[in-house]
């Protein structure tokens, strides 16, 4: 029991924080209903995927500053190909976009492994490339994602309290759980935790890192498609917000930026927390511009408390 708390303590704390925030929200807005809950799941969907993408890459000891532009790329690719088509065609397009952007993510990893330039530098540079490509595909924001495709996320097929946007998150465990239990997933943790030890244990470093970036690319593509579904618009600059917010979400979610430590559950709750804050501000009648500020302060406080723990333990 004590071991479980030590191991999952941070994740539990994040969920408690989220629950606390939800209670406060209901307190502030007594008529909080399924509609507001649906709005929250819609707002959190793209960020949750972005956080998932960043999580797996950071677990492998890397960091991807091009996640936002990758999402934007998936978003505009889907719009330009879906415009004026029906649902079946759109789903086909979505699968192709997933493949394309997964390859783009993998390319990030390949460049990093081959050139041996630090992750942060390469993904900073490729963020220009993906953003430029997104602008090439679509010069300005354009609406026109087919309504049936939008409804995949916007409707509530089963119950108003279980909106589709919540169910779509199941894509993450569908990929993540088998991966984590496989040899390849273990290798990703190993590479992120101690590269030398992983190498001496016979882990193929390059392959594991490229795999992490490829899966990251896949989740970023899901995030881009989520943007298409939740907004109905293709926006070449949509991604800028998500690169930084994804980092915020994984830090809040207890993933160590040093790599090798953390899981997927924390960042998902963190994505919901970060999406809930602006909504709460609106319910309170406060200028939503404070949202960014509060998000920043929240992250600073969380990491400082975490850092204080480390300092005290050392002393």
């Amino acid at each position, binding site marked *: 029991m004590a071991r479980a708390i030590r191991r999952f303590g941070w994740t539990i704390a994040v969920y408690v924080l989220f629950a606390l925030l939800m209670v406060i929200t209901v307190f502030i807005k007594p008529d909080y209903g399924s509609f507001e809950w649906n709005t929250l799941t819609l707002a959190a969907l793209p960020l949750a995927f972005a956080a998932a993408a960043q999580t797996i890459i950071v677990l492998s000891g890397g960091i991807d500053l091009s996640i936002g532009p990758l999402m934007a790329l998936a978003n505009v690719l889907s719009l330009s190909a879906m415009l004026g088509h029906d649902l079946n065609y759109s789903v086909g397009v979505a699968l192709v976009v997933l493949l394309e952007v997964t390859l783009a993510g993998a390319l990030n990893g390949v*460049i990093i492994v081959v050139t041996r330039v630090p992750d942060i530098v390469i993904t900073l540079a490729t963020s220009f*490339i993906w953003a430029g490509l997104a*602008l090439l595909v679509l010069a300005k924001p354009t609406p026109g994602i087919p309504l049936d495709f939008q409804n995949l996320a916007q409707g509530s097929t089963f119950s108003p309290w279980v909106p589709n946007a919540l169910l779509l998150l199941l894509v993450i465990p569908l990929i993540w759980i088998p991966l984590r239990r496989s040899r390849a997933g273990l290798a990703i943790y190993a590479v992120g935790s101690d590269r030398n030890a992983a190498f001496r244990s016979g882990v193929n470093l390059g392959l594991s890192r490229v795999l992490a970036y490829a899966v990251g690319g896949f989740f970023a593509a899901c995030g881009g498609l989520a943007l298409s579904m939740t907004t109905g618009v293709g926006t070449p600059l949509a991604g800028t917000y998500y690169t930084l917010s994804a980092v915020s979400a994984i830090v809040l979610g207890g993933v160590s930026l040093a790599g090798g430590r953390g899981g997927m559950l924390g960042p998902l709750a963190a994505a919901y927390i970060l999406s809930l804050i602006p909504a709460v501000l609106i319910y309170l009648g406060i200028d939503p511009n404070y949202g960014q500020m509060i998000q920043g302060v929240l992250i600073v406080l969380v990491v400082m408390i975490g850092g204080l723990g480390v300092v005290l333990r050392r002393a």
Partner: protein
Amino acid sequence: MSVRVVTAVRLVQQRSILVLIALLVALAGLIEIIRPGAVNANWVSNILEFAAPLGILAAGQTLVVITGGIDLSVANVATAAAYIMASQAPFGVTRAIIAGLLVGVAVGLVNGVGVAVFRVQPLIMTLAMGLVVTGSLNVYSQAAIRSVPGVPAVIHSLGSGTVLGYVPVSLFLWGPLALVLIVGLRGTGFGRLLYALGDNMEATRLAGVRGWQVLLANYAACGLLSAVAGLVLSGTVNAADLSLANILLLPSVAAVVIGGTSIFGGSGSYSGTIVGALILTVLNSVLTLLDVNDAVKQVLYGAIIVVLAAAYTRVLGHD
């Protein structure tokens, strides 16, 4: 590391600056080929003028990267400093400039406290502070003033004026700053401590250095330099809006990396960063001359940074 190895590494590093300068000259040559007669005194003057804000912003970034950190709030700080300077201008130019610079120092100090005292990873700390700064600035802009403030004449001439027809005024700020940084990094105890902390923080601490004080001062200096860069930039474009310097965040890191400062800390120089900033500015000028649209420009820009960084890592052979 033996003295001989150190000398050899230093030689390669010095040569790599020559390689960078050669690249700079080659890019200028490319422009001359594309449009004969384009490279003249006027062009050089323009390049220096546009490189100055980036060069000063990248100066702060260089200081932080040498200690093994990174500052992702430089662009937000520059924007905030310029905006607050402009909004305070009606109350007197001196007060406005001091207010702008104070923003930089204050944010730098908070970054420093987080990184040095609370041991927060620099990436997270500065990222979060960037959010706080931008959020606060948005709130401030709506609370304080409705219209986009104008830039005082002094700042405008600092950013875009010229002396003797060709020498940009900002060079008289950037030049001495660069000299102080280059000499200071090599020749002073503080400068050497930055390299030491970046190389091995634990060893430096065990050697009796109060690392946190050095880091704190260093982040404050980075904040101050970012604010200066923001003021100069607002003079160059003669406006201060809420996203003034945001496009310079990635180039500020790129200039440092291209200039040969290791992102892991412990090695590098400001002279390299200067050449890096010049290369990026000239590159921009090449792409503008080729008349490619913005999207293609971005793709090429990113690709070239990848190639430069890769080539650099290969040449120097360090990870």
